[in-house]
């Protein structure tokens, strides 16, 4: 199936853009803005708003039409979890399948100081009416907080015999998260921990595809709750045990 942006009719290709050009505002600037949008490959461009931001800058709002489309059938992306279990179902599943509590260690690693993501998944209170992993009776959850070096993180996981580790990465400037995540995987492999751990990444600029490319088992982006992550962990553990 070939798809295009939808404005008010199927396949109209309507796109809304806004940008600033480093020139004084006026008819010439507006025309330049229109030509710029056309040069991006759009077939029709309307500059619906032009506003001087200073004597040297002009801000524009534009609507344009594109003929570019995407073959949706060729787009590859696998969700980490298709259908997730509820908190109770996860606990029942652990009881039946592993007959013991499982251990999960989470942290915001590297230089990143933002715990909002890992807290949303792990804290007792949870987030947006979804309890965190600490509330799960069959999960032993350890939230190590922020700015945890990769070495310390893995040491701790080994110490508590973790079944899974959750790495949160909020800061993505200059791809610092990619470097840090790659470092963690390499370290886990060097220490022969990779096969013993379910390794999961989360963050606002993270998705399942990126996580797998970096060597993780799964990645979760915005809109993720504890039960999504928990479902993935227990299914992956069962899969590794051949269950």
């Amino acid at each position, binding site marked *: 199936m070939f798809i295009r942006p939808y404005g008010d*009719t*199927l396949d109209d290709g309507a796109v809304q853009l806004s940008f600033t050009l480093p020139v004084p505002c006026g008819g010439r600037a507006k025309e330049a803005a229109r030509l710029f949008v056309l040069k991006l490959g759009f077939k029709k461009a309307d500059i619906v708003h032009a506003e001087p931001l200073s004597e040297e800058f002009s801000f524009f709002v534009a*609507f344009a039409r594109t003929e570019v489309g995407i073959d949706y059938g060729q787009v590859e992306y696998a969700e980490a979890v298709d259908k997730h279990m509820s908190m109770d179902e996860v606990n029942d599943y652990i009881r039946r399948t592993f007959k013991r509590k499982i251990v999960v260690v989470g942290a915001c690693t590297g230089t990143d100081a933002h715990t909002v993501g890992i807290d949303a998944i792990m804290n007792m209170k949870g987030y947006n009416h979804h309890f965190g992993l600490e509330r799960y009776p069959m999960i032993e959850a350890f939230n190590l907080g922020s700015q945890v070096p990769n070495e310390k993180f893995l040491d701790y996981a080994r110490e508590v015999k973790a079944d899974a580790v959750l790495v949160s990465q909020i800061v993505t400037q200059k791809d610092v998260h990619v470097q840090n995540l790659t470092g963690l995987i390499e370290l886990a492999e060097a220490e022969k921990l990779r096969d013993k751990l379910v390794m999961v990444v989360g963050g606002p600029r993270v998705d399942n595809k990126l996580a797998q490319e970096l060597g993780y088992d799964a990645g979760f982006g915005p809109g993720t709750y504890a039960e999504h992550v928990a479902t993935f962990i227990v299914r992956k553990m069962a899969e590794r045990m051949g269950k």
Partner: protein
Amino acid sequence: MPAAKSKLGLSKAKISKARELAAVIAAPVQDYIDAHTTASVERATLRLLGADGAAADGAPVPNLITEKCAAGLDGGAARYYLNALIKRAKTPAELNSEIAAGLDISDLPAADEKLLRLKAAELLKGLDARITANVRHRNAKLSEYKTNVRSPLIYVIVATGNIYEDVKQAKAAAGQGADIIAVIRTTAQSLLDYVPYGATTEGFGGTYATQENFRIMRRALDEAVDKEKRYIRLVNYCSGLCMPEIAAMGAMERLDMMLNDSMYGILFRDINMYRTFTDQFFSRMINTAADIIINTGEDNYLTTSDAVEKAHTVLASQFINERFAANAGMPARLMGLGHAFEIDPAAKNGFLYEYAQALMAREIFPEHPLKYMPPTKFMTGDIFKGYAMNTLFNFVSKATNQSIELLGMLTEAIHTPYLQDRYLAIANALYVHNTMAGFFDEVEFKKNGVMARRARQVLDETVDMLGEVSKTGIFGAIEAGAFAEVKRPKNGGKGFEGVYEKSSAYWNPVEDYLRKKLKIAKRKASPTGRKA
């Protein structure tokens, strides 16, 4: 909602005075209305008796009948149709096909008067059952999902031109939180003296109002009702030259609201004033019988006039619309009087004026489902500023307990709403409505503050204006440009040739049925008589 103490210190005596003046203004117009009929009233009558369908060239059956019977329309079109049903021993569907194929029913031999009455009674019984079932269904769904009702009701528009595309967008909007879907009509449909037939997929800036399109959208929204567990209301435009016919179609297909103003067509579409006044009365009887909420169009005044200077024209028109609606048997709970948030965003204290005026409307019309309209006049291509203005509009709407809120679109000045524009508008409104849920009850105002003074001033100016209009009469006032600063001559405008003085033999069983159902007595000429 019960009338609480005025937070703005509005004078009850002045409000009563305004209502009295509106009654004085409406009385001679009502005398005129009672003595006249129009081509569209007659076509609406035929539709309610069963006339439907179209000829191969698209000419609708009701028009074919009134054109052939034009010479006798002052006696009512119903007689011709009922007579043909009896004389040819046909069902309405069979007769419609014959008329569509060219049958002229204007010169058939006359059937016995008693048989005509019996036939009318039989068809009206069917009509009443259909309308009653519609009302019952709506009320049952409203009651089933009443715990999910939010206030104000969120009203959005679809306008693609293609009814099937409209359906997709309407369902998406319902899923996002819309309570009311209006299908905007295609440009200039209001000036067509017929209602097109069948499903349509081409329109400009809107979609044709046809009975089939009504059915298609109703079916789609009914699916959304059970999915979203909220009753989703459907709106169309009961205005223009076919106002009564649209009302008839809406009553039969269970529309829930109708744009329906007593003066909009005169002022903004240059439709003849006698035609419009006569049509609005018949339309409003039908809307009332079908329990359909009307939305009046006062917001439009402020798109042509200054919203600060001419705020009183809105209130004056609301009083007049209220009176005309009451004359058609309509209870306050169906009168969605209109007003708007249209003050120049650059005006100092503009927000306070908006707030004061919206609250004033709420206090003066406590039981009416007020329809509040978003900024349009000062919307530009700066969609970000527009979005901020819409947030303030949402604020006032919630802070003053408006009933029906037509959401502003950030791209108002640019194009018919994109799917994403509607989504952003609904998200904004839901955010504001929820975060200030209890605001209305929390706030009071300074006795002589900017807002209280503003509201009192608008009410004073309204009473003055209504006093003037009651002296010149509404026909003269419109000629002089009292509303929206638009001047319309009495005998000018479109559709005047379709106005007929009722002959002594005039018979309209549908009108009789409506008057009886709504308990509207035939009025005697008022003391001011034919001054109009």
